[in-house]
């Protein structure tokens, strides 16, 4: 008999001083000299394609030209006017599939203008300045709006409503606002506590009261909000994770990737965070990449992402896949988990079945392989915890809240946006766009009512 299996999961795999370097900005901020040079590559396109590709329609040529003219503050004003979370979008956005993909300099020179990095340059400059607040609130409307969820969608909505003169009560189940910007997005994208700095900046506009640790858990709560407030916006994101649905999933060492990242994002000292010697990440999206890369950065010896389809089907962009590969994370394709194998209550390996496509459908091809591991991170998608919402009487579609073009739900005076509504791409910038469009619609509706004769 060989030695009994003991999963090697432990903290402190790296020298203490290494962590800070590993989790610093992966994309370095531009220096002023670099920003000027890069800004001058922009052609100030007519009806700029990059702007059309931005879900919040940031006027890219305008803000870049302002940088080029030495007016970073004006650039930030232009950005934040369209997108008050322009600072985190500059960091989060997969620009390679958004604005930068369609930049004409990409067509011409194979190298787009670094729109995201320039955006960060401008917003950071403003936030570091002596007078970072650029917006003032419209005269008080006397209207009150409840916003549930303080992620990008809720924050954007709350900020726009506050600007328009309404009073906003912002509720979130977690101790800190920011949503996945605070608890989910890779640490090296939003290094330096940016998520909280941005929340502070957003709340500083005034008129927003943050209620942390408040969870919407019953239909009665929503009813109460509807009674007490003139409108309600739901931006609750996707709070639960899909299950693998295979034997052995409950073994020790099988973790939810988003939770793993959340713990990492909140860790005071990354050296205290346990990570496996060998890590398997199951999934093919941004979360899988982030979980894989961050495990590696924590000192895991080998990290492999295992995905059931081919590279072209991965939700993670090519750029993100390359990031994982350059960080030394392996990616295996066409393998679906069949069983988590354990010993003494903890996972020690995963058995995968090789897949092939039969038409559009995946089917096991007969061959199976077993990959040994110490830790398994599940990253096969988030889903809405729709039970309470369904009880509230909200119509759902594809497991998420059904909302129209303006974010209106099936219940009067209840709007929704961000990851929790159907039909989106689950991106920070899109959540912001949803929050803003709902704020515009709510504002229109509230103003309409105010102008009624009885007022």
């Amino acid at each position: 008999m060989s030695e009994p299996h003991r999963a090697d999961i432990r903290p402190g795999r790296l020298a203490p001083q290494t962590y800070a370097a590993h989790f610093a900005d992966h994309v370095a901020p531009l220096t002023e000299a670099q920003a000027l040079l890069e800004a001058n590559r922009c052609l100030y396109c007519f009806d700029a394609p990059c702007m059309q590709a931005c879900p919040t329609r940031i006027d890219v040529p305008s803000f870049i030209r302002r940088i080029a003219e030495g007016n970073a503050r004006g650039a930030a004003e232009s950005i934040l006017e369209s997108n008050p979370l322009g600072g985190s979008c500059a960091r989060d956005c997969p620009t390679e599939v958004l604005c930068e993909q369609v930049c004409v300099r990409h067509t011409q020179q194979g190298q787009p203008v670094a729109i995201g990095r320039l955006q960060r340059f401008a917003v950071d400059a403003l936030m570091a300045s002596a007078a970072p607040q650029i917006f003032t609130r419209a005269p008080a409307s006397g209207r009150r709006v409840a916003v549930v969820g303080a992620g990008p969608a809720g924050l954007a909505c709350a900020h726009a409503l506050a600007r328009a003169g309404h009073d906003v009560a912002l509720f979130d189940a977690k101790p800190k606002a920011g949503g996945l910007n605070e608890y989910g997005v890779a640490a090296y994208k939003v290094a330096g506590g940016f998520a909280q700095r941005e929340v502070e900046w957003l709340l500083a506009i005034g008129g927003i009261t943050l209620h942390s640790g408040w969870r919407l858990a019953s239909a009665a709560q929503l009813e109460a909000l509807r009674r007490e407030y003139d409108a309600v916006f739901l931006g609750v994101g996707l709070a639960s994770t899909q299950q693998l649905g295979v034997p052995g999933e409950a073994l020790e060492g099988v973790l939810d990737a988003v939770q793993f990242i959340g713990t990492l994002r909140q860790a005071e000292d990354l050296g205290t965070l346990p990570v496996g010697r060998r890590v398997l990440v199951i999934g093919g999206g941004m979360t899988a990449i982030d979980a894989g890369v961050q495990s590696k950065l924590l000192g895991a010896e080998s990290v492999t992402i295992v995905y059931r389809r081919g590279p072209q089907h991965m939700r993670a962009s090519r750029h993100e896949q390359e990031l994982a590969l350059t960080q030394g994370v392996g990616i295996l394709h066409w393998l679906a988990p069949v069983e988590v194998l354990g010993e003494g209550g903890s996972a020690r390996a995963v058995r995968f079945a090789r897949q092939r496509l039969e038409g559009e459908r995946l089917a096991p091809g007969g061959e199976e392989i077993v990959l040994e591991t110490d830790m398994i991170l599940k990253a096969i998608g988030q889903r809405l915890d729709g039970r309470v919402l369904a009880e509230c009487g909200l119509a759902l579609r594809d497991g998420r809240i059904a909302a129209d073009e303006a974010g209106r739900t099936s219940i009067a005076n209840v709007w929704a946006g961000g990851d929790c509504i159907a039909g989106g791409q689950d991106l920070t910038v899109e959540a912001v766009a949803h929050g803003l469009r709902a704020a515009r619609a709510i504002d229109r509706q509230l103003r309409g009512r105010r102008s009624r004769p009885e007022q």
Partner: protein
Amino acid sequence: MARLDIDFCGIRSPNPFWLASAPPTDKAYNVERAFEAGWGGVVWKTLAEAGPPVVNVNGPRYGALLAVDRSLIGFNNIELITDRELETNLAEIAAVKRRWPDRAVLVSVMVPCREESWKAILPRVEDTGCDGLELNFGCPHGMSERGMGSAVGQVPEYIQMVTAWCKRYTRLPVIVKLTPNVTDIRFPARAAKAGGADAVSLINTVNSIMGVDPDTLRMSPEVGGKGTHGGYCGPAVRPIALHMVTEIARDPETAGLPISGIGGIGSWRDALEFIALGAGSVQVCTAAMVFGFKIVQEMVSGLAAYLDAKGLASVEALRGRALPSVTEWRYLDLNRVSKAVIHQDLCIQCGRCHIACEDTAHQAITAQRDGRRHFEVKEEECVGCNLCVNVCPVPGCITLRELAPGEIDRRTGQAVSGTALDWTQHPNNPLRSGA
């Protein structure tokens, strides 16, 4: 192999590239290095009368207009003429010329507008063994306040008078260096010729103020809180210089007068343009101050390769070749019709051509076709103005196509005429010949 050597009003030089009278030719140390690098000639930094030398500011004497990549577009200075002793300069000139007999060594001179002053200095200059004299009638700052430099160059009568004195007191070829700070360059050139000048050189620097510091709200550069206009040179002044050289070359009164072309020359292409418009030698200052003396090697290589490729045997064979293409507006053929053509395979769809034409020209470029981004010239609106060609970021993406005689101009609905029609003959011209 084409010959690069020249004979410029009797001054021989192994190539047409000379360093203009300026800091690069300030002293023997620089000039020695320049000759080692391959310059064909130098015009020594302008000498002044014997006596206490002029004094320069001990602060910024240069300013620049930079492109976004910090490449230099224009350059400005408030430096005066040489601030070294006359004796020192003369001794160095003599020594350098002895060591480099095959190179052209010219000496620039600026003394007060009195006959005795010129009479006194010229023999001493001649004694150095130098090849020629250049009269600095161009310096537009400092010296002009003392009645020299451009103060002389702006008054044709003074130019003629001083040139005549010089011809009287020296046997050296006399080149008159002209200031561009005049309304019509032909008058000073004619005056120089009337005074007996062997050649003219141009341009000296253009009056200029580089800017204002937005923090201090003072002009820049400044010395102790105040600045003054300086002389502008470098690539930005080249088109102005080319025009002035061309004017003199085309003027029947000065035709044949040798011209040394100066102003913004930094490459063989720039030199080619001056020579093709009539210059027999070219002078360089700014480009050397930016890149050092070695650039002459790139200029020599480029010009030689060009002449060979064109089958031109010498610099002289190139000289003036573009002059017949220059005329007055009234002689341009108003019957010719061009249309812009966008080469779709090169277009990157930035839309600059569209917005330029839409807002400021003739609304002749589409922005969409079938609901999709698409830029195409509407021939029925295009007047062939060339604006889109100039704003397109992709070389060769937009070109102008000249319609063939007989082809219908879709803007006017008329067939293009095969015969030329200029303004002097045009029916809309009430003063047309024969009207």
